[in-house]
């Protein structure tokens, strides 16, 4: 029985999923170049939410300026992390020990961020004020929250910007080429270390922007990071690791499954989703849409 409520739920889910795709795209980008799963991705997500909140609340800046500022600050921090914390040989490594080291390092950083935020803001959640309060009625009985709609549209635009960046700018093409074939790209003069800094910066910026955007719809607290990371990861996996636009499809699928699950099962939906995704990860680790073939 398809009710108006179910459709509303579905729309919300899709919008939510689209915004999450942004986080997933960032994760995918980072993996493509650095060959590691960014364990601090969730931390950047919450950082984005908290930064945006701070800019609005303490500096009284308008929403979009705050978001831009958040993005800039995150980029600097993220690129800085790769530059200052990671030794040059670990920035792009296929050696499992090296990869593990990087992932553990990032997990440590995520812990630092999480607890710094916990210390600064206490355990409470923060929210960023919406600029479009209320909801819109698309069909009789079918609602969607304005802000959520806005946020998902903004996310789509950002995605578009990513596409243009990867396709038409030198840097973007360099990143894409590097993700496809590291050796060839290096032989053509692209520096892995530099690209790692930039890519990590961009990827984490996506996470934080997403966090800032979603903070205007839901509230965010310091422990949300570890809930978001698995979601982002499974979306990436659904869409195919390395396939940036697969994340979009993955986000959509996630949104649909989650909202339907939420509608019927309520509390367990997140578990359900995680399990479904875990199952997919096992059956087809390169993702449903395949994407770039992984080099071992």
């Amino acid at each position, binding site marked *: 029985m398809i009710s108006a409520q179910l459709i509303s739920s579905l729309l919300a889910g899709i919008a939510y999923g689209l915004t999450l795709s942004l986080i997933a795209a960032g994760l995918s980008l980072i*993996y493509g170049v650095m*060959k*590691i*799963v960014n*364990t601090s991705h969730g931390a950047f997500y919450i950082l984005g939410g908290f930064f945006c909140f701070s800019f609005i609340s303490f500096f009284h800046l308008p929403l979009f300026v705050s978001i831009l500022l958040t993005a800039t600050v995150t980029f600097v921090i993220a690129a800085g992390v790769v530059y200052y*914390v*990671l*030794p040059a040989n670990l920035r792009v490594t296929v050696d*499992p*020990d090296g*990869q*593990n*080291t990087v*992932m*553990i*390092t990032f*997990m*440590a*950083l*995520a*812990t*630092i961020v*999480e*607890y*710094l935020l*916990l*210390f600064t803001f206490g355990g409470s959640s923060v929210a960023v004020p919406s600029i479009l309060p209320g909801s819109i009625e698309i069909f009789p009985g079918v609602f969607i929250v304005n802000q959520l709609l806005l946020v998902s549209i903004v996310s789509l635009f950002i995605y578009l910007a990513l596409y243009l960046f990867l396709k038409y700018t030198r840097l973007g093409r360099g990143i894409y080429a590097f993700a496809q074939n590291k050796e060839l790209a290096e032989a053509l003069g692209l520096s892995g270390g530099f690209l790692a800094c930039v890519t990590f910066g961009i990827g984490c910026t996506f996470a934080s922007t997403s966090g800032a955007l979603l903070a205007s719809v839901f509230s965010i607290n310091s422990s949300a990071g*570890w*809930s978001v*990371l*698995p979601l982002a*990861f*499974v979306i990436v996996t659904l869409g195919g690791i390395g396939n940036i636009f697969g994340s979009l499809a993955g986000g959509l699928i996630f949104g649909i499954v989650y909202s339907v699950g939420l509608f019927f099962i309520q*509390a*367990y939906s*997140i*578990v359900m989703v*995680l*399990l479904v*995704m*875990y199952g997919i*990860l*096992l059956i087809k*680790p390169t993702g449903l849409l395949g994407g770039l073939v*992984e080099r*071992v």
Partner: protein
Amino acid sequence: MSVFEELKQHIERGKVSFSLISILFVLFVIAFFTGFSYLCYTFMYLISYLVLSASWYLLYSYSGQLSLGHALPFGVGAFSLMIFLSRLNFHPIIALILAPLVAAAVGGTVGLTTIRLRPAYQGIALLIASQVAFWISLLQVGEEGISLGVQILAGGHIYGIILLISLICMLSIFFVENSKIGLKLKAIKEDGLASQSLGINVTYYKILIFFASSFFAGLGGTSFALYTSHADYTIFSIPNSFLPIAMVVVGGSGELTGCILGSVIISILMRYLPIKIGLPWTYIIYGFLVVLVLKIYPAGLLGAIKRALTKKPEGG
């Protein structure tokens, strides 16, 4: 070779870890007799986390498999014990034996599914698994978790049991390390392909060690639940996956001795720092420690000590 000689050989090869473990247990016993309950609790906390970090160390240093979700078997061990004791009313001894086995089954099975994944994915998959457990436990038993209202065992007995459990655990790990199996595992970690060409069934050992590691982690969780008489969803939280890693990394990931050092130091700090500077700053400091160690001194504390010991004396 007679059993005694083999034993001697094992101890010879790992004399430092063996002495450390022995010293720890002597201290443990002494602490009990002093009767300072805070000291006792500190030790019991230390032991649980020692066992947890040793189990992570086993998995990582011996088969190269990264687990970012070791809170899973840890928590399952704790929850199983609580469920067996308070909901199902099993006899304590049976509960104590079954709980880690359940943890081994769960952890091992989950781990089994991740073996074919490349290391980065494997780590994250296990993280996801621990998050799933987190949510399920929160949803199933709520924030209060499961508690044991009644003291089923006397305080002294609890202490003794934990002592025994962890002694067995640490010694087993120690013996495996220095045995033929340990050698095979080290080889697998270095080069799985070459190991296969020498007749080693890599997949079998990888799975085996997952079950073993989960068993020991579960043992740690069981001990933890035993002395706190409680288990709730927070046992699956990320810090419990991160702490064992921090302990092993800071102490020195190459050897069991490093793992012991790291876990002792961090556990002791965990009992005192949060009181002085608050929990958030404690974790922040740990995070920094890990990053620092990995970047500047990957050999960890143990590496630093070794270097200091082998430095040539000044002068002629």
